[in-house]
């Protein structure tokens, strides 16, 4: 059984999460957008992916503090090079996982 108040909370969470996902694709797709806006949107993936990734690599804890030397960061360097060299998503993911697994066993 799902408790009633919990149910309302989850439904509310679902709604406020769905709207920011839906509204842009709903109102922007299939429209002619101004040139500057398209150029801005074109840069968003590089910006968002980097903004998601870098703090995960070089910060830790809550509240976050800067820490450059983590296992995540050490493995990121060869993983990055493999991605640049091979342009292969599968190969990069397997390399990253393998190195992380190996170093995790060695150091802990």
């Amino acid at each position, binding site marked *: *059984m799902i408790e009633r108040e919990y149910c309302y*909370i989850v439904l509310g969470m679902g709604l406020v999460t769905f709207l920011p996902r839906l509204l842009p694709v709903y109102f922007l797709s299939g429209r002619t957008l101004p040139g500057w806006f398209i150029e801005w949107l074109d*840069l968003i*993936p590089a910006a968002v992916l980097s903004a998601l990734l870098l703090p995960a690599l070089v910060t830790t804890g809550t509240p976050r503090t800067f820490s450059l030397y983590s296992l995540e960061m050490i493995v990121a360097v060869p993983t990055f090079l493999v991605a640049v060299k091979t342009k292969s998503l599968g190969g990069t993911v397997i390399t*990253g996982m393998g190195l992380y697994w190996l170093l995790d066993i060695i150091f802990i």
Partner: protein
Amino acid sequence: MTGKDGFISDGLIASGPVCLGYIPIGIAFGVLAQKAGLSPLETGFMSLMVFAGSSQFIAVSMLSAGAGAVSIIATTFVVNLRHLLMSSSLSVFLGHSGRKKLFAFAYGITDESFAVNISKFKNGEWDINGAIVVNFSANIMWILSTVAGGYGGQFIKPHSFGMDYALIAMFICLLVFQLKGRIYIFTALLAGILAVLFSIFLPGNSYIIIASVFAAVTGVFIKKMGR
């Protein structure tokens, strides 16, 4: 381009790294939810309705701290607002897709599915059908992993084979795919550095939106000046 039915297998293959990466996080979430007193059914219900990892972690810790419904929902809204940016940048590639497909696709936009789909869209090898398959297979894997965590996740060892690193490695590679010129490298560097700074000084995850918007605006200005 994908064939008539090819989009299903293409989508399943493309979602591989995401699905793999969701397993350890999903199990960890299920374990946390169980400790907070949620049944596996309640955990699965949240994963189905919300499908947004970090906000689910926050909601469960707020629940166990006795927070009220309004503050939990408001926090969820703020934490998940970043999807506005992802949805906007995906919209360019969706053309005149039908309403049902747009709803189905929008439901599954996460950081990870966005990363996979946007890189395929930008390569010109993708359409909304394949993207929907990516989103839903990631969603199913997320629901299953969180429920499995709820059923005695303490007995599962999700940290083997470096699975914890699958999503980081995926983001590294998909970011590299985006760096197709100096302006993209500049924008990514600026966004990354600002995100690190803001993540230390600002509460929550507002740093993602602020850093990305600022870096992309700066990128557009620099492009205009260079002409």
